[in-house]
């Protein structure tokens, strides 16, 4: 079985909840495991809000965001595509300081940290003027754990 979803995403925070619901509904009707649906929900929130809030120059008039989701029996994948400034969140997002005290913690990077911890694989590339961030989950894999991912 293979299913796909292609969705144009309005570059406005007011639409984010509806977009999340649409993507998660696609996953739900594709009958993927709950742990992936929940991780997908959070990933959409973090990735799309980052693009909307930080991805574009203020004067960019042709803002474009989209996503392409697909599932097979083995893999659920979603690629977020935007024509904002070149930005690889996997390597360029600030590393959140998880060790220091509450008062000293720097703001930023936490959303990307969460996404990286909750996916099985992620990759980024810049092609034809677009940022493309792909997140993947193995459908029958043993649930990923933070300890495995962080090396902690």
């Amino acid at each position: 079985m293979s299913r796909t979803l292609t969705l144009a995403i309005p570059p406005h925070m007011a639409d984010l909840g509806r977009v999340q619901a649409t993507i998660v509904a696609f996953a739900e009707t594709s009958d993927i495991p709950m742990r992936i649906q929940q991780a997908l929900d959070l990933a959409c929130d973090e990735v799309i809000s980052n693009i909307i809030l930080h991805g574009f120059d203020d004067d960019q008039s042709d803002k474009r965001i989209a996503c392409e989701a697909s599932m097979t029996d083995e893999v659920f994948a979603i690629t977020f595509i935007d024509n904002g400034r070149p930005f690889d969140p996997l390597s360029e997002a600030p590393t959140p300081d998880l060790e220091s005290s509450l008062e000293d913690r720097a703001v930023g990077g936490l959303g990307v940290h969460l996404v990286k911890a909750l996916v099985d694989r992620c990759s980024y590339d810049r092609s034809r003027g677009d940022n493309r961030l792909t997140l993947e989950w193995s459908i029958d894999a043993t649930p990923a754990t933070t300890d495995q991912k962080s090396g902690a």
Partner: protein
Amino acid sequence: MELVERREGSVVVLAASGRIDHQTAEAFQKALEPHLAGCSEGGDSIVVELSGVNYVSSVGLRALRLASKKVKAQKGRIAVAAMQPTVAEVFRISRFDSILPAFETLDAAVGELQA
């Protein structure tokens, strides 16, 4: 997102429900704000009960971080309790459980924070 207040002795229990995401985090933060001033050394303590919260994203964590920072500056005590597994996972990944006390049950939190 809703926040309902009740009191158990010197502990103010703030029971949150719904999603704490980019749409609701600001409202969550504003709802917490009025309760923070009285949470100081020798005053009330706060337990944010999260059993009704099924989703927290990074902005929700930031709202809790700001509340905790303010309370600690006042030498007060604040904790979270009764997180659903998915919310607890987000806390654990973010290592928030090491800086903002988290209790498995509301009773345990109230017992610990009761002066």
